[in-house]
Structures are given as structure tokens and as C-alpha cells.
């Protein structure tokens, strides 16, 4: 529509000026000048038709598609003349997008997504070596240690945990629902936890209640499912009060009553979705290796000191294993992403810097070559913003063409990038937006400095330049 209008306007302007010329010639002929001479004189008087058209077009205001097409052609020619620069610009876009993707995924991993635990800085996992006791004696040691931890200064909550989130490995168990149509066996991620574990870790209990100190050996066997497991075993039903039985070979038909459904949390890897999980109370799994303790407190070192003191009192021969905060655990588990992001950020930044310098050099050279033209246009009354666009449009075209090519390159590389990133697709539009905006900002800065210089050219200096 706009293009069509432009065409009409262009044709009308053409006809308008032609009419002027022929009328001027006509007047001369009426005065007796011969036709050829009349036309030449009219043309002479008219000055430069092309220039008149151009300044008239400027009065239309707004840049129309025709100008944009001209600009695009111009930009393409420039790109063709500077293949090195073009290649660097494309590469920068690709690298910039890649590095921004990595950085974004890291920020995402650390800040944005709900992880296994919401307050990783406050959680510390403490454990000790083999206690050398078994059965009731060992249970008793755990109870005493847990009691000591809970009463330690600054400790808000504490519990027992067999497999800590994002620790090393895990346990699994195949299980099936007792109620419902036919046994559908499923491999579950299995964990053994103490009373108030979910409150300590900050995992939401969606329905039912947590294990308490009364869920002991000899009482009704109970278990807790995460949402993924509950909706698999009991789709569109309330899982509370239903039963799940172990289908392991040594299980002998044991089943447990579902006490609660909790939110999905990641234990094995941040890169994969949370597995369907089942939790058992540690006092009902006497032969399991329960692992360690988890505490939540603002001062994690005080909790560790209290634990140490209690351990030397109740089990002086048992060594304390190095405690680890959940924060540390998280950082360790995304170490690869961290390295990738740091490296990409470095190379992306370097490439961005090089391209900005290249663009700056190219633009200043172009502006220097055209000092005369720019000065003349300014003297003829060209507006500052027109000149700014005059200088910037080349950069704009480089970006208009470079961005899609850079994006295409990144799409091609996305398969590789995707394998390295956690929970983020390299095709995520937000990432491209951030990357492209960053590059546009850098490009604009690099071009606006020579542009500003061009506008300050003194017309007289510019004219003497030739």
C-alpha cells in the first residue's frame, strides 16, 4: 500500500516537473524562440531535475519503502565490498547469541527456576562415617543426633535424609498401585527421610501430612509420593489413603499407605525433569543406610559445630564427614554450564568488541570520504536527523541482513548448544531478543560516534575538502 502510494507520488512528481519544463519552453516559443533552443533554456533555468526531485521528496517527510530498498541495495553492496567485516559481524552475532544463551541459562538455573530446594544457602547436609552400631542402637544414635541438631542455636529445622538432592546417585524401586485397574509397575526414585524433612528442605506438601516421629517400625507402613508418581499411579484420583506395593524381587508383597503428596523436586540432575519419587520414613526402613542430616539455619557453621559436639558425645569414635551446603551442591552440579557460560561470555564479548571496532573504523572512513557531501547537504539545509540517518543506515542494513544470517548460523549450531545447556532450548525467543538487542546497542554506539562527527562538519571546510 505504502509502496504503491510512493510509486504514484513518484510518477506524479515526475509529471508535475515535466509539465513545468514544457510550459516554460512553450512560453519561450510563444516569444519566438525556436523549439530546441526554448527547451534547452527551460532546462537550464530549471537547474538539476534530479536534485529538485530529491529535495521535493524530502518535503514528503517520512522514509518510504523505496528509500529503504535503496538503502538495502546500498548496504548489500557495502557488505559485498567488505567480506571480512561482514564475516566478523555474522560470527559475532552467532557467538553473541550463543554466549547470551549460555549466560541466560545460568541465570535461569541459579535464580529463576524452582530448584529442588528454595533456600540453598541456608541448608547444610552433614553426615558421619559408619557408626559401627546396628538396629535399635543405630536408630537411637540417629534420634539423639537429630534431637541435638534441633536444639542447636540458630537451627530452624533439621531432619534425616538418605539421598540428598543433587548428591551422588540415588536409589530406585519398582512399585505398583494396589488399588485401581491392574498393576502398572513403575520405576520410582526412592528416598528415605526423617520427620519434618519436607518442611526443612522447603518442598511443598500438596496434600496429606509429613512423616512424624510416630511413623516407626511396627506401625502402619506409610510412604509419601511426589506429584509425578501420584498422578501416574492414581490419575485423576486422590492418592491419599491408597496403597503402593513394592514389586522388587525381595519385597514379599509389602505395601504402604500413601500419607501425602509432595511437589516434584530434582534429586538426580538439574538437566532432567524430576523423576516420579517415593519417600519412606527412616524409622520404618531399619536396614537402609540413611546417610546424613539436613539442617536449615541462617548460620550454617553454628549448626555444624553443634553437630560435631553432639557426635563426640554420643559416638566419639565416628568420624564427621565434610558438611556441604546446598548452595555448593547446586554450584557443583551446574559447573559445566558455568564454565560454558564463562567461556562463551569471554569469546562473545571479545567478538563483540572486535566488531564494534570494525564497524567504527568502517563508518569513520566512509564519513571521512564523504565529508564534502555531508557538509554540502548540511549547508543546503539538511536536518541533523537526516544526516544521522544517512550515516547510520549502512549500519542498520548490516544489522538487518547480519542478524538473520547470524540467527540462521545459531539455529544450525543449536543442536550442539542444546546438548550443553540445562533446561533451556537455544530456540528460546527471549534469548535471541536479549542477544540481538545487546548487539544492536553496541552497533549503534559504534556508528553514532562517526555520525556525530559528520554532522559537526563545517560546510566551508567540507567544500574546501575537494
Amino acid at each position, binding site marked *: 500500500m505504502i509502496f504503491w502510494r510512493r510509486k504514484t507520488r513518484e510518477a506524479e512528481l515526475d509529471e508535475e516537473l515535466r*509539465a*513545468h519544463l514544457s*510550459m516554460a519552453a512553450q512560453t519561450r516559443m510563444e516569444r519566438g524562440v525556436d523549439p530546441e533552443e526554448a527547451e534547452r533554456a527551460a532546462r537550464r533555468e530549471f537547474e538539476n531535475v534530479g536534485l529538485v526531485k530529491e*529535495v521535493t521528496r524530502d518535503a514528503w517527510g517520512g522514509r518510504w519503502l523505496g528509500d529503504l530498498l535503496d538503502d538495502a541495495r546500498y548496504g548489500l553492496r557495502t557488505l559485498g565490498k567488505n567480506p571480512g567485516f561482514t564475516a566478523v559481524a555474522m560470527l559475532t552475532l552467532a557467538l553473541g547469541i550463543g554466549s547470551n544463551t549460555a549466560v541466560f541459562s545460568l541465570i535461569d538455573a541459579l535464580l529463576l527456576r524452582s530448584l529442588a530446594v528454595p533456600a540453598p544457602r541456608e541448608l547444610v547436609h552433614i553426615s558421619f562415617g559408619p557408626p559401627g552400631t546396628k538396629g535399635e542402637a543405630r536408630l537411637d544414635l540417629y534420634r539423639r543426633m537429630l534431637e541435638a541438631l534441633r536444639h542447636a542455636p540458630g537451627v530452624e529445622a533439621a531432619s534425616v535424609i538418605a539421598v540428598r538432592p543433587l548428591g551422588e546417585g540415588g536409589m530406585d524401586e519398582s512399585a505398583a498401585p494396589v488399588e485401581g485397574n491392574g498393576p502398572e509397575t513403575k520405576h520410582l526414585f526412592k528416598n528415605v527421610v526423617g520427620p519434618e524433612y519436607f518442611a526443612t528442605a522447603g518442598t511443598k506438601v500438596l496434600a496429606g501430612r509429613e512423616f512424624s516421629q510416630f511413623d516407626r517400625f511396627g506401625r502402619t507402613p506409610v510412604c509419601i509420593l511426589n506429584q509425578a508418581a501420584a498422578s501416574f499411579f492414581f490419575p485423576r484420583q486422590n492418592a491419599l489413603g491408597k496403597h503402593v506395593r513394592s514389586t522388587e524381587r525381595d519385597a514379599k508383597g509389602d505395601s504402604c499407605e500413601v500419607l501425602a503428596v509432595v511437589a516434584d523436586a530434582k534429586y538426580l540432575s538439574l538437566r532432567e525433569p524430576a523423576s516420579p519419587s517415593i519417600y519412606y520414613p527412616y524409622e520404618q526402613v531399619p536396614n537402609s543406610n540413611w546417610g546424613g542430616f539436613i539442617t536449615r539455619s541462617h548460620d550454617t557453621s553454628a549448626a555444624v559445630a553443634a553437630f560435631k559436639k553432639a557426635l563426640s558425645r554420643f559416638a566419639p569414635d565416628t568420624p564427621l564427614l565434610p558438611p556441604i551446603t546446598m548452595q555448593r551442591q547446586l554450584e557443583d552440579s551446574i559447573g559445566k554450564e558455568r564454565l560454558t557460560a564463562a567461556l562463551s561470555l569471554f569469546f562473545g564479548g571479545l567478538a563483540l568488541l572486535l566488531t564494534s571496532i570494525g564497524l567504527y573504523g568502517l563508518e569513520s572512513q566512509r564519513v571521512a570520504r564523504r565529508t564534502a557531501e555531508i557538509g554540502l547537504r548540511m549547508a543546503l539545509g539538511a536536518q541533523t536527523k537526516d544526516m544521522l540517518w544517512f550515516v547510520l543506515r549502512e549500519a542498520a542494513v548490516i544489522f538487518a541482513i547480519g542478524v538473520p544470517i547470524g540467527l540462521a548460523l545459531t539455529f544450525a549450531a543449536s543442536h550442539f548448544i542444546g546438548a550443553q545447556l540445562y533446561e533451556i532450548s537455544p530456540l528460546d525467543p527471549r534469548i535471541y531478543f536479549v542477544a540481538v538487542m545487546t548487539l544492536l546497542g553496541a552497533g549503534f554506539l559504534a556508528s553514532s560516534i562517526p555520525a556525530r562527527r559528520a554532522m559537526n562538519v563545517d560546510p566551508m571546510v567540507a567544500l574546501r575538502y575537494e
Partner: protein
Amino acid sequence: MPEKKEHYQNRIELLQGTLDLLILQTLQWGSQHGYGISVAIRNRSGEILQVDTGSLYPALHRLEKQKWIKAEWKVSENKQRAKYYQLTAAGKKQLSRERTKWSQLSDAMAGVLNPEQM
């Protein structure tokens, strides 16, 4: 040579303002095409004012954009298709504003140049 530059720019600016007034005034007597306007200005100014096409057409198109004049294609007496411009209602108001401004300016100029007559 900063004075020279200043002088140059002033001349351009002054010309632009007066040209609008000249065009609007010329169109008060009826619709006219670009060539007709330039001839009319030249004749009425006793050949003093020569409007070059490089200033005339941008001014016409600018005034049209501001809706002070509107254009229409008509055939001239010489059977030549031409774009005729005519004043709009807004253009008439603008003309009287410009005239007031101009007479103030010329009075002021006269006052400065011939102080004894005031």
C-alpha cells in the same frame, strides 16, 4: 570562517519563510500550477524575485502536507496536464497569520532603518 557560514544559513532560513507567504498569496487569486506560481511571483515583483524550482517544489509539497493547499490534476489552456494547487480554509488562515507576521517584521525593519520617521 564562521561568519560566512552563519550568513549562508540565515539567508536560506529567511527565504523559506517568505516563500511560503509568496505562494499562499499568489494562490489567493485562484488555483495555479507550479510554473504559473513562479511566473506570477516573478511578474508581480517586477522581475526581482526569481523563485528557483529547487525551492518552489519542496515548498509546495510541504504546504500540501500541512494541508494549507491542496492539489488537483487539470488540463491547462495549452492542453497540458498539470498539477494545480489551491488554498484550503486552513491555508487562508495561515495566509492572514503570515501577512500579519510579515507586516510586523517590515514595520519593525522600517523603524530600525528609518528611526526619524517613527
